C-alpha cells in the first residue's frame, strides 16, 4: 500500500503541468458552486433582513373581535412557549379629513393603538421623533410631515368616528369584501387574506378598503358615525412603507395603550414552524375565531413557504447553473484524468505484472483524485467566497436596489451548510470524473499494457467480425462517403471511426459540451436581457406626467375641446424652467374587437375560442391620441409609411406590453400583424353611456351578445347588448410599433395610437362620465426641480372645465439610473459566467483533440514511413475531424436547445408571455467558435506530432 501511495505521489509530481490544471479545474468547480450557492443564500438572507427591517418579524396576523374571549386568547398566546413575541394593533377610530387635505392624505385617517413589542414584531419605526409611549401621544403618517402643518410637539384634536357600510339605494343583498394578498394563492392553503360579509350598517375596520360603488360596481358605500374628539401630542412621524401601518384605506396614525373597541390585529412571531400549513394550524389553535393572514414574504425568505415566483425562478436558475457548472467541470477533470491514466497504462501494466491488485491500481487513481480534491476544493471555496465578497462590496448597493430593498445592506452571507453542500457537490464532481479512468486503470491486463505500444482500444464489434473470411477483392472498397470523396485518407478515417473503441468520443463530447456551455451563456444573456427589459422598463423621458380628465359638460367632451385643453396644458408645462417637451397624448379606454388573426398571442390567449365575437377578441383598448405631427413622427420612427388619404381612420398598434401583477412580470404579444379592428363606440339605445366591456355570451336565440358595465347617469348597470346591435367604428391598423410613444406612462394592456384629428370618429360624444388620461413627457437636466411646477398644470385643466382625480408627475431619472445599473449587474454576471464557461469549454476541446492526436503520434509515423504523403494525411485528419464535429455538434445543438428552453421555463415562472426565442446568433457563434478551436487544436496537435518528425516517433517506446 505504501508503495502505491508513493507511486501515486510520484506520478502527480512528474506531470506538474497537468496536476496544476486538474487542481485548477477542481478549484474552479468549487469556486463557482460556492459562489452561485452563496449568492443565492445571500440574496434570500438579504431579503429576509430587509423584510424584517421594514415589516417586522411577525409570521402571521390574526384579527379578532374585542371581547373577553379574545383578550383571554391573547394573554394565553403571550405566555405560550412557542410564541417568541407578540404585538397588537387596534382601531381607535377614523378621522374624516377636510377636502383640501383629503386630496393628498386620503379621505380618512385611521388611528390605531398598539401594544406589545411593536417595533420588533411589526417593524414600526419613526422617520422623525419617537414612538408614542402613552395614550395621549401620537405618531402621524410620514405623508403628514410633508402635506400638513402638523409638527412634533403640536397638540392636535382628531374627531374619531366609526366606519359603517351603507347600502346604495335601490340595491339589495350583501357582498363579500376584504383583502387578499395578490399572488399568494397556495393550492393547499387557499388565498392568503381575509374576507368579510358586508351588510347594510356593518362596521368596517381599517383593513378594509373604501366602499365605493363607482369603483368596484359594488352596492355599498360607507359613512363615518359617532365621531368624538380626541386630543394627542404629536411625538413623531412614521418611516415609510410599514405594512402593518399601511391599512386598507391608507397610512395610519399610531398611539399606544389607548382604550378602544375595534377589531384587534394580533401579530405573532413563533418558533418551531417549518411549513405554512403548520403555521396556519398553530394560529387556528391560538385564535380559533380569528382571521389569519400570513407574512408571506418573511415565510418565503426564511424558507418556510416556497411559493413566490421570482424566488422560484432564481432557485431554478441556480439549480440549472449548478448542474451546468458540474457538467463542465466533470468533463474538464475527467479529461485530465483520462489522459493521465492513458499515458500511464504501461506503468499500470508493469505494476500489475509485478503483482499490484486491481484494487490497488484503482485506489492509486482514486488517491490521486483525493489529493487533487484535498488541495483544489479548499482553494476553490476560498476563491469563490473571496470573489463573491469582493463583488458584493463593489456592487452590493446596486444588487440591493435590484432586489427592491432599502432597509439593509447587501453583503455575503457564508453559511456552513452551503459551503458543505458546495464541497460535497465538488467532491461528487471529482469522484465522477475519476471513477471511469480508475476503473480503466484497474482493468488493465499486464501483457496487453506491456506488449501493445499503442493506446488504441478496439471496438468490440470490430473484433467480432474479424473471424470472417477475408475477401481480397473488396479490400479498400466501399469505405463510406468519406472514402469515396477523400480517397484513402477518407477510408482510413472512416475505419478509425468504425473500429476505434473511443471513436474520438472524448473529442465529440467536449465539442458537444462546448456548444452547450456557449449556448447556455448566450441564452442566459438573451433571456435575462428580455427579462431586464421588462422588469426594468422605465420611460425614456426624464419626467412623465399623467393627469386624469373628466369632462364636466357637453362642450368639454368634444375632441376639439379636449385637444385644445391638452395642447394648452402642454404649452404651459413646456414653459416650465429647464424642461424640454417630448410630446403628449390623450388616452381613452374603449371596448374594441380585435380580429383573431390580428391579435397577438397574449391577447388571443386572454379569451377562449367561443368568446370570440365574429372571430374577433373582445377587449378593452387603450386608444392613444397624439397630435397629428407627433403621430407622423412616431410612425416615421417605427418605419411606418402613412397612406395619403383613406376613408377608415388609421392607427398604429403597439406590438408588446409589459406589466407587473405584483408577483409576476408579464410580457405580452398584443398585436401579431396589421389589419382592421373595430372600436365599439356604443350600442343602440345605450350610446349615452360609459361602456366597459366585460364578457361575451350567447342569447337564447343564438345571437352573440356582449355584456357591458354601464354607468348611465349615476347608476351602474350590467347591460348585455347583442353583437349586431353594437355601434362600431372600423380602424385600420397600418403598422406595428415596438413601444408606446414616449409620452405614454402605461406599459401593459392592448394599445393603439391614432392621430388626434381622427378622434371625432372614434370618441363618442358622451356626457360627463367619461374619463380620459392626459400624459406627457419631458426631459430636464434637473428633473427634481421641475416636479412641483409641473404639478401646477392640472389646475389649469381643471379651470378649462374638467374634473381631475389624478395628477402625477414622476421623476424617472433616479429609477432609470438604478435600473441601468441593475442591467449592468446582470450583464457583468452573464459575461463573467460566459467567460468562465467558455474557457472551460475551449480548454476541454483543446485538451481532448490535441491529446487524441498526440497519443496517435506513432501510428501516424508508421503510416508516413510506409509512404503516406502529406495530402493523404491531411484528408485523413480532416475526415476524422468532420466526423467528430458532426457527432459533437449535432447532439450539442440539441442539448443546448433543451437547456435554453429550461432557462426559459425558469424565467417563465415569474414572467408570463415571455416569448421563447432561440438565440440563433449565439448558436451560430458557438458552432463557429467550436470549429475554430477544433481547427486550432488539430493544428497544434499535429505540430506536436511532427515536432520530432517520423524518426523520433518511431524511436519512442
Amino acid at each position, binding site marked *: 500500500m505504501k508503495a502505491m501511495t508513493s507511486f501515486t505521489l510520484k506520478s502527480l509530481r512528474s506531470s506538474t503541468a497537468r496536476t496544476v490544471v486538474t487542481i485548477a479545474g477542481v478549484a474552479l468547480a468549487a469556486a463557482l458552486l460556492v459562489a452561485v450557492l452563496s449568492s443565492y443564500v445571500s440574496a434570500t438572507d438579504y431579503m429576509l433582513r430587509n423584510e424584517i427591517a421594514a415589516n417586522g418579524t411577525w409570521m402571521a396576523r390574526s384579527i379578532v373581535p374585542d371581547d373577553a374571549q379574545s383578550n383571554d386568547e391573547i394573554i394565553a398566546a403571550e405566555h405560550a412557549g412557542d410564541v417568541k413575541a407578540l404585538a397588537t394593533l387596534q382601531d381607535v377610530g377614523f378621522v374624516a379629513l377636510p377636502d383640501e387635505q383629503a386630496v393628498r392624505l386620503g379621505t380618512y385617517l385611521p388611528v390605531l393603538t398598539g401594544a406589545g413589542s411593536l417595533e420588533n414584531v411589526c417593524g414600526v419605526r419613526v422617520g422623525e421623533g419617537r414612538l408614542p409611549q402613552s395614550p395621549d401621544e401620537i405618531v402621524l403618517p410620514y405623508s403628514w410631515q410633508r402635506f400638513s402643518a402638523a409638527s412634533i410637539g403640536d397638540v392636535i384634536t382628531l374627531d374619531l368616528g366609526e366606519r359603517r357600510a351603507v347600502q346604495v339605494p335601490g340595491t339589495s343583498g350583501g357582498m363579500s369584501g376584504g383583502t387578499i394578498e395578490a399572488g399568494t394563492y397556495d393550492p393547499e392553503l387557499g388565498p392568503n387574506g381575509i374576507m368579510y360579509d358586508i351588510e347594510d350598517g356593518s362596521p368596517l375596520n381599517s383593513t378594509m378598503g373604501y366602499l365605493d360603488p363607482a369603483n368596484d360596481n359594488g352596492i355599498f358605500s360607507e359613512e363615518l358615525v359617532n365621531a368624538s374628539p380626541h386630543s394627542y401630542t404629536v411625538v413623531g412621524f412614521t418611516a415609510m412603507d410599514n405594512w402593518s401601518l399601511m391599512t386598507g384605506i391608507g397610512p395610519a396614525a399610531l398611539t399606544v395603550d389607548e382604550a378602544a373597541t375595534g377589531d384587534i390585529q394580533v401579530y405573532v412571531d413563533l418558533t418551531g414552524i417549518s411549513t405554512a400549513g403548520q403555521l396556519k394550524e398553530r394560529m387556528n389553535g391560538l385564535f380559533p375565531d380569528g382571521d389569519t393572514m400570513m407574512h408571506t414574504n418573511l415565510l418565503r425568505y426564511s424558507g418556510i413557504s416556497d411559493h413566490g415566483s421570482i424566488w422560484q425562478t432564481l432557485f431554478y436558475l441556480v439549480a440549472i447553473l449548478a448542474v451546468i457548472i458540474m457538467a463542465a467541470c466533470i468533463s474538464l477533470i475527467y479529461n485530465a484524468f483520462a489522459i493521465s491514466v492513458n499515458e500511464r497504462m504501461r506503468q499500470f501494466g508493469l505494476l500489475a505484472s509485478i503483482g499490484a491488485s486491481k484494487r490497488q491500481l484503482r485506489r492509486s487513481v482514486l488517491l490521486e483524485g483525493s489529493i487533487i480534491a484535498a488541495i483544489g476544493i479548499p482553494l476553490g471555496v476560498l476563491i469563490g467566497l473571496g470573489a463573491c465578497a469582493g463583488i458584493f462590496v463593489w456592487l452590493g448597493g446596486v444588487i440591493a436596489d435590484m432586489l427592491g430593498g432599502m432597509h439593509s445592506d447587501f453583503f455575503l452571507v457564508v453559511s456552513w451548510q452551503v459551503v458543505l453542500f458546495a464541497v460535497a457537490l465538488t467532491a461528487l464532481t471529482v469522484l465522477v470524473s475519476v471513477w471511469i479512468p480508475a476503473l480503466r486503470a484497474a482493468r488493465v491486463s499486464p501483457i496487453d499494457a506491456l506488449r501493445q505500444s499503442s493506446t488504441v482500444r478496439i471496438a468490440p464489434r470490430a*473484433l467480432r467480425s*474479424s473471424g470472417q473470411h477475408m475477401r481480397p477483392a473488396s479490400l*479498400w472498397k466501399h469505405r463510406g462517403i468519406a472514402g469515396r470523396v477523400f480517397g484513402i485518407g477518407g477510408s482510413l478515417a472512416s475505419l478509425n471511426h468504425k473500429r476505434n473503441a473511443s471513436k474520438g468520443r472524448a473529442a465529440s463530447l467536449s465539442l458537444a459540451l462546448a456548444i452547450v456551455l456557449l449556448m447556455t451563456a448566450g441564452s442566459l444573456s438573451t433571456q435575462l436581457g428580455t427579462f431586464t427589459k421588462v422588469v426594468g422598463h422605465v420611460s425614456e423621458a426624464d419626467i412623465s406626467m399623467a393627469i386624469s380628465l373628466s369632462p364636466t359638460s357637453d362642450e368639454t367632451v368634444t375632441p376639439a375641446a379636449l385637444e385644445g385643453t391638452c395642447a394648452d396644458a402642454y404649452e404651459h408645462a413646456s414653459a416650465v424652467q429647464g424642461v424640454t417637451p417630448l410630446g403628449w397624448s390623450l388616452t381613452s379606454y374603449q371596448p374594441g374587437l380585435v380580429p383573431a388573426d390580428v391579435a397577438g398571442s397574449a391577447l388571443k390567449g386572454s379569451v377562449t375560442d367561443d368568446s370570440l365575437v365574429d372571430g374577433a377578441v373582445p377587449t378593452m383598448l387603450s386608444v392613444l391620441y397624439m397630435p397629428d405631427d407627433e403621430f407622423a413622427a412616431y410612425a416615421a420612427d417605427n418605419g411606418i409609411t402613412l397612406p395619403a388619404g383613406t376613408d377608415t381612420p388609421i392607427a398604429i398598434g403597439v406590438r408588446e406590453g409589459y406589466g407587473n401583477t405584483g408577483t409576476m412580470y408579464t410580457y405580452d404579444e398584443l398585436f401579431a400583424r396589421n389589419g382592421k379592428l373595430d372600436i365599439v363606440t356604443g350600442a343602440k339605445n345605450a350610446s349615452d353611456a360609459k361602456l366597459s366591456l366585460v364578457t361575451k355570451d350567447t342569447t337564447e336565440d343564438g345571437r352573440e351578445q356582449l355584456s357591458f358595465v354601464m354607468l348611465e347617469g349615476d347608476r351602474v348597470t350590467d347591460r348585455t347588448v347583442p353583437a349586431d346591435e353594437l355601434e362600431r367604428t372600423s380602424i385600420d391598423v397600418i403598422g406595428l410599433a415596438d413601444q408606446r410613444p414616449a409620452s405614454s406612462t402605461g406599459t401593459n394592456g392592448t394599445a393603439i395610437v391614432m392621430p388626434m384629428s381622427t378622434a371625432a370618429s372614434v370618441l363618442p360624444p358622451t356626457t360627463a362620465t367619461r374619463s380620459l388620461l392626459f400624459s406627457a413627457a419631458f426631459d430636464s437636466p434637473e428633473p427634481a426641480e421641475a416636479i412641483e411646477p409641473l404639478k401646477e398644470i392640472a389646475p389649469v385643466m381643471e379651470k378649462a372645465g374638467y374634473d381631475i382625480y389624478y395628477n402625477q408627475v414622476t421623476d424617472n431619472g433616479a429609477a432609470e439610473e438604478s435600473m441601468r445599473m441593475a442591467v449592468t449587474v446582470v450583464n457583468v454576471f452573464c459575461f463573467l459566467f460566459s467567460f468562465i464557461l467558455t474557457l472551460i469549454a475551449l480548454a476541454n476541446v483543446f485538451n481532448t483533440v490535441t491529446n487524441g492526436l498526440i497519443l496517435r503520434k506513432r*501510428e501516424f509515423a508508421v503510416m508516413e*514511413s510506409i*509512404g503516406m504523403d502529406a495530402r493523404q494525411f491531411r484528408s485523413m485528419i480532416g475526415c476524422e475531424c468532420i466526423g467528430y464535429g458532426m457527432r459533437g455538434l449535432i447532439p450539442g445543438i440539441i442539448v443546448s436547445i433543451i437547456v435554453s428552453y429550461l432557462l426559459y421555463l425558469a424565467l417563465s415562472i415569474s414572467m408570463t408571455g415571455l416569448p421563447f426565442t432561440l438565440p440563433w446568433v449565439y448558436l451560430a457563434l458557438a458552432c463557429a467558435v467550436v470549429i475554430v478551436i477544433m481547427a486550432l487544436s488539430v493544428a497544434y496537435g499535429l505540430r506536436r506530432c511532427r515536432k520530432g518528425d517520423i524518426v523520433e516517433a*518511431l524511436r519512442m517506446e
Partner: protein
Amino acid sequence: MDILKVSHLTKVYGKGEQATRALDDVSFTIPEGQFVAIIGASGSGKSTLLHLIGGVDRPTSGTVELNGEDIYRRSDEQLAVFRRREVGLVYQFYNLVPILTVAENITLPVALDGRNVNAERLTSLLSTLGLAGYGNRLPNQLSGGQQQRVAIGRALMNNPAIVLADEPTGNLDTQNSREIMALLETANRETGQTLVVITHDEDIALSADRIIAIEDGRIVSDERIR
C-alpha cells in the same frame, strides 16, 4: 551492379552543445540482391543509417543513391511515393496500424499508392507468411511473431527494390526469430530483393552475405563473408 550507393553520409541531431553526431561521414555501396547485416552497440547509429537509406529522414550532409538516383533530391511528396514503392521497412516493434486488419495493414502501401490490390499476390503472401485465414484479424488479436510477419508482408507487398529491417527479431523468441529471418531470406534469394538487417543476433549476422559494423556513427569494419 550496385543498387545502393551511400556517400559521405552524416547526420547530426540537435544543435550546439547538445548536438549528437549519429552518423559521421559514412560511405559504402551495396550490389543488387545482397543480404547485408549491420551490427553495432546500441546508440551507435544503426537505426539512423537505416532510416536515411529508407527515405524516412533527411541527412545533414552526404547522399543516398538508389539505382543511381539521389533520393533526397526528391520533394517530400515524391519521397513518400519512394517509400511506398521502392522500400520495405520492418521494425522491432512491428508498428502495425491498430485499427487495420492484417490484410489491410499488408495492403496499405498499395492503397496509399491508389492502386487496386492484387488479390492473388495478397493471398499467396498471406500463405507464405503463414497467415492464411488471419486476413480479417486485427493486430491485437495476434501473437508477436504473427504481428512481425504482418509487418514483413507489408514491407514485401509492393515488391520493393530494397527491404530494410531494424532488429526485426529483437522482440521475439528463438523459434519465431528463425521463422522471420527465413521469410526475409527467402524473399532475398527468390526475388533478388536487396536486404539490409540490423541485428544483435550473431547467428543472423553470420547468415548474411556481408557484415558492416558501426561504432559511434562510423563504419569500423565491412566484411564480405560469402
